């Protein structure tokens, strides 16, 4: 696909695309148009090479051996932690626990914090926007503790309806667990405002950063959240990389999550004592090569500049929404790009999203069709599923045009 000039002055998209080898492949003899970065991002050569380089040249278990390779592995692993901490504005590297991603991070808090702290009739406040991974762990914790789940509703344009915040967020609330960016609607909730309100009633705040951290500049001290979950594979890193940021005092007060090697200080027949934070939460051999490569992904994004990333995505999302609306699509979620990110759910001329995705695939265009692990959102809008296009640093307006052309073809096929 020929690249035309991009409106973002800051990101050199043509140069960025050269870093992503998968973008050179074809699908059905057409150039791949990858519009599913909200599900997982593609990986630049730098990240792929970093993971391979770890295995080729530095592979050993981290925090175990005292030979040189083991020292190198440990150093690379800890450097990655420091990079990730710096990337999200965390004051100390030890406030970042490596995990397999946001789902594991949320479950870690649901086990190690919620089950220890919550009592009957305590409340966890979620929102109707939440991904299943920020609902189900709390349902399980509530079942075990007698705590109660409450939900912030959403408005017709997919923003949080805060009109009843005062009655939903009370001194009973022990945790506000809220999406930083909706994975289906793109909505950017006012996290800092909510965090202040939650702290005012003594509640802690967990921000689901799966979609936020890859796409928006994040500073945990500015957000003032207690927990932030991080998905590596959605921010150019390998699958099974990611982390949990938590204020260190919370990590110190929490129980361990998984028991096993390295998370202990001493083991006796009847009991054990725990390693220091964050190692208390890193049982067994971790995804060392993946976290190391996540550190490289963080460096790549820092090199682009997260402000430039955000600017590019605002522009391409605005263009995509404009094209979709012009084509007669129903776009779910806010249309103002200042309050939303680049995940755009839509319904096109009554063509079922599955049918749409299959026809688009024939044109090389990869979009997501389904409920996006967002059944509360789907139910709210009265649809079983939506089609979703989502954008990242390598996407161009030409690709939005390819999407629009493929949609027109789908309309011809289905006569919608």
């Amino acid at each position, binding site marked *: 696909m020929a690249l035309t000039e991009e409106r973002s002055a800051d990101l050199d998209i043509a140069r960025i695309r050269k870093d992503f080898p998968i973008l050179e492949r074809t699908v059905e003899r057409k150039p791949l148009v990858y519009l599913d970065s909200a599900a997982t991002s593609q990986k630049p050569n730098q990240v792929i090479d970093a993971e391979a380089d770890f295995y080729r040249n530095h592979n050993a278990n981290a925090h175990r051996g005292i030979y040189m390779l083991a020292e190198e592995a440990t150093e690379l692993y800890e450097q990655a932690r420091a990079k990730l901490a710096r990337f999200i504005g965390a004051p100390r590297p030890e406030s970042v626990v490596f995990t397999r991603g946001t789902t594991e991070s949320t479950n870690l808090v649901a086990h190690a914090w919620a089950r220890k702290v919550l009592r009957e009739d305590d409340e966890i406040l979620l929102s109707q926007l939440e991904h299943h991974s920020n609902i189900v762990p709390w349902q399980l914790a509530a079942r075990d503790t007698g705590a109660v789940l409450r939900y912030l509703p959403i408005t017709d344009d997919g923003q949080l309806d805060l009109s009843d915040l005062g009655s939903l967020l009370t001194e009973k609330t022990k945790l506000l667990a809220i999406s930083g960016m909706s994975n289906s609607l793109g909505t950017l909730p006012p996290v800092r405002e909510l965090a202040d309100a939650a702290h005012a009633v003594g509640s802690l705040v967990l921000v689901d950063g799966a979609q936020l951290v890859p796409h928006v500049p994040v500073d945990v001290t500015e957000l003032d959240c207690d927990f932030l979950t991080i998905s590596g594979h959605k921010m150019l890193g390998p699958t099974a990389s990611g982390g949990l940021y938590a204020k260190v005092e919370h990590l110190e007060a929490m129980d361990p999550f998984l028991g096993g090697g390295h998370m202990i200080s001493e083991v006796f027949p009847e009991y054990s004592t725990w390693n220091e934070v964050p190692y208390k939460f890193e049982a067994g051999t971790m995804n060392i090569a993946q976290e190391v490569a996540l550190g490289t992904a963080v460096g790549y994004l820092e090199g682009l500049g997260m402000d430039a990333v955000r600017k590019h995505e605002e522009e391409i999302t605005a263009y995509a929404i404009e094209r979709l609306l012009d084509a007669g699509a129903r776009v779910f979620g806010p249309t103002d790009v200042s309050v939303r990110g680049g995940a755009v759910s839509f319904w096109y001329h009554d063509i*079922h*999203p*599955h*049918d749409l995705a299959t026809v688009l695939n*024939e044109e090389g265009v990869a979009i997501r069709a389904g*409920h996006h692990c967002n059944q509360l959102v789907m139910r709210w809008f009265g649809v*079983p599923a939506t089609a979703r296009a989502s954008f990242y640093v390598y996407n161009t307006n030409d690709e939005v045009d390819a999407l629009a052309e493929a949609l027109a073809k789908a309309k011809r*096929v289905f*006569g919608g």
Partner: protein
Amino acid sequence: MALDEIYKEVILDHYKNPRNKREMPGAVLRCSKNNPLCGDEITVYVNEDTGTVTDVSFVGQGCSISQSSASMMTETVAGKTRDEVKERIGAFRGMMAGEVEADEDAFGELVALKGVVKYPVRVKCAVLAWDVLQDALAAQGEAEGSAPH
């Protein structure tokens, strides 16, 4: 395999003008199921008379593959004995698994769905109604001798 092999006229025809898409009050058998991937749900109704499936209908929403497959299913199994219906279900599954040669003599219009075989995820859409029909018949088998509800 080209797009038009999947969305043949017959699929679009059954999608846009589904046959036997109606509730069936007083049906002997009724069963519902959803496709967890997309949230589509389908309900199948069956009436029987002395071991013969006399009427099959369905309601629900879904993609062109699941809806057209359900529509064609209702036509192909009506008037067949319970054993013949089970055989049809098995044969259709075989075709969608790519194990059975999909010839028009054996499958009639359902042959139009053979192009879906190349999309494993969509195969679930195609067999959804057939799964529900099979569950309905199995539930009836277990309740043999008891009064229908």
